């Protein structure tokens, strides 16, 4: 996309700006949809209706929330560390927004064809930890300090199983770039990595169980990275009131919510690329059958967003059924179970790819 715009405008800054705006617009629209979607999903799961009065079935609910938050008075506590207090939400949002640079929405619409795509995404998404620590420390409130400590420990320790599973996938596919990874899993669902990858052969059937184990490990650890139940300890309402954003008001708090939902989608996007064939459609393209290849990038985009939203829905589904883990149980799950399994999985996949 950047190259395409660069040829038109001839000026890198404008091209860069436009390509950066596309994911930003997508995130804003997605967050407006996702907040409403979560309230409706949780409502219908709990035998009630959810927002109904604000638009047709409460569709404008998040717009109303957003405009109301614009009008809120911006309170910064007197003893709070003023500068850090305002930088923290920006840093947290920057961390999760930057990850969208390398996510390929379709073969044409792609931030920047970065060779080291997956490596970049994992590195940049740990920027969020710095923002959270800043928020916790600067709001000068015991609850947010406790919340920030916990979430920093949680995100840092759950990066390791994610990295290990990503390593095993990179070993299998041989490339770091997300775009190539998606292309390799051609347009039929049995070629996806979850079913053992594109090359037909004995190794493909051997791989299937370990692919499922890898998928489960990476799904659990990305759940923890995004602070969703059963790992949402940093903002555990019942204990720490509201975790690290206890002191935040109006738009600053909206930035935290924006980055949480943006993170949710970017994490689901990574999982679809790694295991479920990125923007490839499971049943072949309408564009090919109708003989209009120009249609394919849009179809790919639609498939990609559909898969992403499905995984976001599963995250919401988990949130409203499972209780919450305690901090030390969360650490034992990561260090005693996820990381050893991820290592074993890595070794076995390595051996199989050598066959």
């Amino acid at each position, binding site marked *: 996309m950047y190259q395409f715009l660069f040829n038109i405008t001839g000026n890198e800054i404008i091209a860069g700006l436009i390509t950066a705006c596309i994911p930003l617009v997508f995130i804003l629209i997605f967050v407006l949809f996702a907040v409403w979607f979560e309230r409706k999903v949780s409502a219908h799961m709990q035998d009630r209706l*959810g*927002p109904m009065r604000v638009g047709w079935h409460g569709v404008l609910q998040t717009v109303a929330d957003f405009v109301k938050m614009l009008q809120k008075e911006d309170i910064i506590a007197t003893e709070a560390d003023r500068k850090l207090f305002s930088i923290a939400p920006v840093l947290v949002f920057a961390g999760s927004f930057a990850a969208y640079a390398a996510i390929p929405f379709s073969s044409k619409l792609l931030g920047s064809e970065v060779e080291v795509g997956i490596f970049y995404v994992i590195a940049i998404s740990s920027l969020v930890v710095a923002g959270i620590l800043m928020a916790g420390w600067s709001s000068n409130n015991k609850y947010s300090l406790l919340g920030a400590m916990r979430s920093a420990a949680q995100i840092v320790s759950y990066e390791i199983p994610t990295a290990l599973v990503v390593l095993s996938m990179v070993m299998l596919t041989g490339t770091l770039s997300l775009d190539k990874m998606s292309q390799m899993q051609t347009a039929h669902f049995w070629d996806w990595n979850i079913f053992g990858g594109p090359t037909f052969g004995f190794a493909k059937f051997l791989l299937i169980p370990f692919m499922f184990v890898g998928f489960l490990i990476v799904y659990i650890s990305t759940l923890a990275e995004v602070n969703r139940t059963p790992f949402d300890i940093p903002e555990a309402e019942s204990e720490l009131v509201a975790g690290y954003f206890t002191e935040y008001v109006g738009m600053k708090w909206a930035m935290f919510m924006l980055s949480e939902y943006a993170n949710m989608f970017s994490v689901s996007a990574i999982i679809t690329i790694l295991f479920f064939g990125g923007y490839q459609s499971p049943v072949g393209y309408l564009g090919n059958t109708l003989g209009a290849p120009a249609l394919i990038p849009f179809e790919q985009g639609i498939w990609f967003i559909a898969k992403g939203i499905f995984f976001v829905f599963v995250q919401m589904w988990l949130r409203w059924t499972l209780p919450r883990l305690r901090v030390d149980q969360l650490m034992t799950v990561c260090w005693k179970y996820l990381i050893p399994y991820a290592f074993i999985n890595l070794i076995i996949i390595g051996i199989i790819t050598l066959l």
Partner: protein
Amino acid sequence: MGLLDKEFSDGNIVITKVEDLFNWARLSSIWQLGFGLACCAIEMMATSASHYDFDRFGVIPRNTPRQADAIIISGTVTLKMAIRIKRLYEQMPDPKYIISMGSCSNCGGPYWEHGYHVLKGVDRVIPVDVYVPGCPPRPEALLEGLLKLQEKIRNESLRTHSV
């Protein structure tokens, strides 16, 4: 709202449009501070449960006073608690509203005569927008109180704060 106070010559089309939008946004997403005092809190929980569902009106409980727009004072306000409620009220960001639920917080309720430790009505400590009578008020009464509050917000104007 200094910008909007300047009188446009041709008058109010611009202001009423923006006013309606702001009021509509404020009234359709009132976030209540999730805390209850006494028996009315159980009825408030029943109202936000599945049978009467507060969420239909966009009301979700928020735990910190910073992110709440309205407090529903549900239950008896004692002198020891009144100091805390005053501090909670002050911690909330500005466009904030108070629903006093139940006759205990309206005027002391059944404890008005001999309750040496009961504050006779929460409006002695914080300004109340809507009073919901009843002991405890039925969930429908609380919903009607919320609709009254929404009506009140709908008629607020940006130029002069109507309280």
